[in-house]
């Protein structure tokens, strides 16, 4: 009894949050799955069970799997597939976007941190500049990036294409997000712009977290500065890289505002989250919208749950 008196009030104080999260996170996720397995499409809400929505998002048979994967990788339609053609395009875009975004932001962020690590004059100013895009909404950033990446050719060219032209780098001019093959990768550029500073900050904290004695000891052993980094500092950064990958990966899976701000509802820039929105708002296809939302959740859960469990466990070990 005395024990309960000790911790009871704490539980009581947190319980509203527990209940709210239980209902509005976990409960609604369950409800969403139910909608995705219903036949609530176009017409009024019904309660019939129907896996039709998923049927349009997955290959129908094992035989179709190769075809499906091929179509996603190449971004080309296939006549033999029963899958929703727009969905194939979405997955193709998501794949390209993710690779370009994660690799770009990780590389640039880590490099900037590496350059700043040893302390440079005006470090605070550099840091503040690199990090400022985090304070700007994707919608506002999209307004200016849509203009910068304006694909209009020749005399009508503007934005970066015009700048390249003026700097004598005309060969760099391209179709950006309207490019047929790599358009989705161009969409990653504003996202890299937005997140690189954040990744820089994570890595900088990581670099600075390596005990100076370790570096010093390696130097005493006659290791060159580069070897100090390679053998002492970099191995310490694995947890940071893991965090960065998780953060970038989950942003990438659900990317929405940025795409809407730059490409609107066009198929050529469409990603799964945008398609889900179109399905709900324009097509009123709730079952399929919910099915896509469920798949987004599964994608993120696979990424995040092991990471969360790992983090809390290692925290407990301390």
């Amino acid at each position, binding site marked *: 009894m005395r024990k309960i008196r000790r*911790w009871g009030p704490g539980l009581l104080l947190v319980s509203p949050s527990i209940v709210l999260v239980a209902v509005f996170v976990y409960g609604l996720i369950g409800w969403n799955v139910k909608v995705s397995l219903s036949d609530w499409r176009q017409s009024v809400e019904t309660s019939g069970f129907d896996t039709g929505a998923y049927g349009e998002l997955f290959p129908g048979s094992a035989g179709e799997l190769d075809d499906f994967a091929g179509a996603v990788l190449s971004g080309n339609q296939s006549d033999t597939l029963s899958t929703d053609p727009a969905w194939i395009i979405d997955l193709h875009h998501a794949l390209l976007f993710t690779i370009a975004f994660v690799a770009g932001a990780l590389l640039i962020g880590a490099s900037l941190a590496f350059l700043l690590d040893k302390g440079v004059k005006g470090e605070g100013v550099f840091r503040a500049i690199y*990090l400022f895009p985090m*304070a700007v909404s994707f*919608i506002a950033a999209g*307004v200016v*990036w849509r203009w910068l990446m304006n694909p209009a050719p020749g005399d009508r060219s503007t934005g970066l294409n015009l700048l390249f032209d003026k700097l004598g780098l005309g060969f760099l001019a391209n179709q950006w997000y309207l490019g047929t093959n790599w358009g989705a990768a161009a969409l990653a550029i504003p996202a890299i712009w937005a997140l690189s500073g*954040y990744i820089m900050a994570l890595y900088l904290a990581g670099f600075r977290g390596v005990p100076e004695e370790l570096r010093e000891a390696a130097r005493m052993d006659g290791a060159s500065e580069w070897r100090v980094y390679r053998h002492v500092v970099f191995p310490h950064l694995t947890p940071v890289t893991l965090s960065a990958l998780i953060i970038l990966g989950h942003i990438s899976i659900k990317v929405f505002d940025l795409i809407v701000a730059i490409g609107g509802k066009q198929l050529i820039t469409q990603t799964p989250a945008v398609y889900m*929105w179109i399905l*709900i708002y324009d097509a009123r296809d709730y079952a399929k919208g919910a099915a896509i939302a469920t798949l987004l959740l599964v994608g993120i859960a696979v990424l995040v749950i092991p990471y*969360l469990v790992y983090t809390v466990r290692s925290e407990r070990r301390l």
Partner: protein
Amino acid sequence: MSTAAVTVGPKIRARRRKRTLALVVKYAALVFAAIVVLLPVYVLLVASFKSGAEADPSRAWALPHVWTLDAWREAWNGDQYGLLPFLKNSLKLVIPATLISTFLGSLNGFVLSRWRFPGSDLVFLFLLFGMFIPYQAVMIPLTQIFIDVNAPEGIPRLVFAHVIYGIPITTLIFRSYYATIPEDLIEAARMDRAGMLRTYWSVVLPISAPAFVVTAIWQFTSIWNDFLFAVFIITDPSKWPVTVALNNTTGSFVTPYNVQMAAALIASLPTLIVYIALGRYFMRGLMAGALKG
């Protein structure tokens, strides 16, 4: 040192030259990166101070011949593109939502770090997962519930949503912060037979200011910049927060681009001002967001 400098051999001199070169390359790279990051800001500013006649895309990189505030005026409260009513909506949204969710986070964080109960780590994990979910996965039922229970339309629905889905991150930031306050402080209060609320009120709360600032900035920024919740939940265009209104004006190709740029700047100013004034705290919130305590 000074005598050594006179007698340096060619080897040392070469090494020095190499080091200078490395330094130059390093600063050049840093400055180049800074220019690239600021490029969009240059475009926004330059375009927003041009007149409609001068806002020709081909001259976009040049400074305005005549500096004018016309585009700013139009984007601020012009008849066609004025953002002012939507800025007001955003304020009505962001102030209560930030205050409530920050306070909730403080209570949760305190209990989960300093007034723990059996299973409190599991409860934390349970709450934390809510931070990572794609909100699309709750959006259809959420809008449905609002309709079913006849919740007051417009901003109140949005405040509610941001408070609920803000619980995980605000709890996380406060829990990490409270974990750093000395256990003795809490124990001393307990020895004095102070109850939980009394301990929170008179011992913990007075030293919580930094965590409140960090959390409030985080919530302010993410709620002000949110587009997803607003676009799904708000059906009446007069209730739109500024992000949705901005996307609507700039999404149309008839909007003059000097007005588009001014509008984007106006919509970003509140968060930018907070960032410039309180950058240090902003940074701490980001690090907490990365689960780095």
